[in-house]
């Protein structure tokens, strides 16, 4: 069976320890986590986790079932089975000496990114997009010398219209 990237949306009770229950489940059973994002929802008592993981069909089925088995889990949706929008935000600090600054700004423009911090030697760029776009931005900026990055991990929601 072939391995595929899956985005899981997990609603959990907003209680102490719930993150470590989920993280422990992945490490204890040898599942992969590519990224994990946690945040509040409209309901104060509920948090949403967006987990990006990789595995074949059988592994993903186990991951979903094991997540559902946790007593604090309210709902698990494999967004890969649905139409969904997914986004990640990254901050990229890139070398930007005067001679190359214009070129970098052009890339920023093309990808509709924003410059959020400037110094004589560096630019910090804020970029948002799906997996493919983020990858493309990195590959374009690589040659200038990326000094530091910070990523939110993927967040995702099911699209309102599924057909």
């Amino acid at each position: 069976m072939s391995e595929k990237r899956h985005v899981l949306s997990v609603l959990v009770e907003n209680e102490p320890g719930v993150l470590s229950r989920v993280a422990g489940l992945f490490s204890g059973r040898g599942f992969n986590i590519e990224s994990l994002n946690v945040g509040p929802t409209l309901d104060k008592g509920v948090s949403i986790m967006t987990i990006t993981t990789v595995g074949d069909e059988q592994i993903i089925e186990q991951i979903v079932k094991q997540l559902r088995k946790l007593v604090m889990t309210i709902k698990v949706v494999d967004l890969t089975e649905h139409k969904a929008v997914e986004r990640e935000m990254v901050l990229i600090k890139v070398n930007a000496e005067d001679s190359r600054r214009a070129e970098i700004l052009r890339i920023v423009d093309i990808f509709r990114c924003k410059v959020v911090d400037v110094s004589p030697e560096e630019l910090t760029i804020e970029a948002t997009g799906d997996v493919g776009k983020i990858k493309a931005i990195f590959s374009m900026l690589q040659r200038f010398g990326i000094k530091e990055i910070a990523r939110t991990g993927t967040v995702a929601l099911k699209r309102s219209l599924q057909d």
Partner: protein
Amino acid sequence: MELTGAQILLECLKREGVDVIFGYPGGAVIDIYDELPRHPLKHILVRHEQGAIHAADGYARASGKTGCCLVTSGPGATNTVTGIATAYMDSIPVVIITGQVPTPLIGNDAFQEVDIVGITRPCTKHNYLVKDVASLALTIRRAFYLARSGRPGPVLVDLPKDVMQARTAFVWPDDEAIRMRSYNPSAKPNKRQLQKVAELIRAAKRPVFYVGGGVVSANASADLCWLARRLHIPVTATLMGLGGFPADDPLWLGMLGMHGTYAANRAIQDSDLIIAAGARFDDRVTGKIAEFAPKATLVHIDIDPTSIQKNVAVHVPMVADVGQALSDLRALVEQQDAGFDFVAAHEPWVKTTLEWELEHPIKYVPAKRGEAVKPQYVVEKIYELTKGEAIIATEVGQNQMWTAQFYGFQSPRTFLSSGGLGTMGYGFPAAIGAQMAFPDKLVIDIAGDGSIQMNIQELATAVCYDLPVKIVILNNGYLGMVRQWQELFYKKNYCATCMEAQPDFVKLAEAYGAAGFRVTRSRDVEKVLKEAFAVPKPVIVDVRVSPDENVYPMVPAGKSLGEMLLV
């Protein structure tokens, strides 16, 4: 009326139906112990916290109720971890109450502080730290509800000392209050899947029931027996399933798996329909997974969705309480198959399995005159003397496998053994717990000389509370199962398996105030066992058995069930 946390805890335990609690005091739980004499709860003071958790587990397995234990913070709590993992692997309902340092000190590395909730997260069904006395009653109720519902398991509740001292109005949470939107174990079998199973059974030529601990846990034994007999289907069980089907029934194939019978393993490999009920296709059962049951359609009934499609791909998955599923299947068969002649349909197959049984029964080479006692003979004699009616606990290793092979378990909840985790030192404290549940029953721990030394200190507990548990040590002077693997697979490199400097178990028993017997000759076995079982106090029978006896049949690890080593 306002009550302290300690009072609320004990009131909740009483209302949850707890009548006995196994425990060990310490600084963080003194408030609870201070309150204890004013409550009807019977407290059993063990000699080590591991004894407390195993006893609570044994009590739960034997009685079907939820076991309960109480220990202090830090080392008291960590000493229960092996027992918690044991109960978790075997799905046993236990509630563990641990003391914790006062809430203002949590995180400060206070004296006897440990993050027991963090430590036990992966080996409990769920756990709680109670920070506010106002949520105490609800948490205790939920702990018991979680422990016994769905797939049962251990639930730990960590109670800081100041929460035990704080006061609040006591309100008993009703059933509505304990419900959780995030926890809805499904029990009802899918009707269409059940119908499919009924059709598969009618069409099958070589069907087998493969049952596990779920049948015992869900009290599904009666329906299983009815179905097996009506449908004329042979039954095999995992270690955890022993007792779920009577061993004297002609349809009984014996245990399957690594040390299973030839007939059971052969039946699995030749079967065209396997109905797995409350079992989880564990590696000790399946052997090499790719070659397991190659010809069979697999039906899998289990209450835990994660058990299904975990190790093997099954054709008919059914998430349901096994008790509910088997009783619904029974109703279906009664209603629509009244005229179907299952005996005619399955008799050739049943006959074939009987021939396999005759060809290679579970056996051993009896001791010749002057030879050391055969351990299997001792188990056979225990079976004969008790007529299969005793509660039998085992330790782990050869003693456990010989018991599984040579003791014919007749009814559920009479076999207590650490199946999943394989915890040495489990049997004796578990037997103490079972004896608490059934004071008048004969409770026997069949032990090895290695494992009995892991919780031997509980002899004091047994003597102190007049719990006449009988320990029969199959004493071969070795960690026998490891020694067997060294002999068969590690070129006889017997490293660290010879138990030198053994204590005198008879004197040891006497030192604790129990009775001790020693047997060195086969012809004395029956007489001494009879005498020992009649003694109204705890007893050790030290039987010196043949040191190089192995457990057979054996499917070497990683081999298929078709590749058995026979006697």
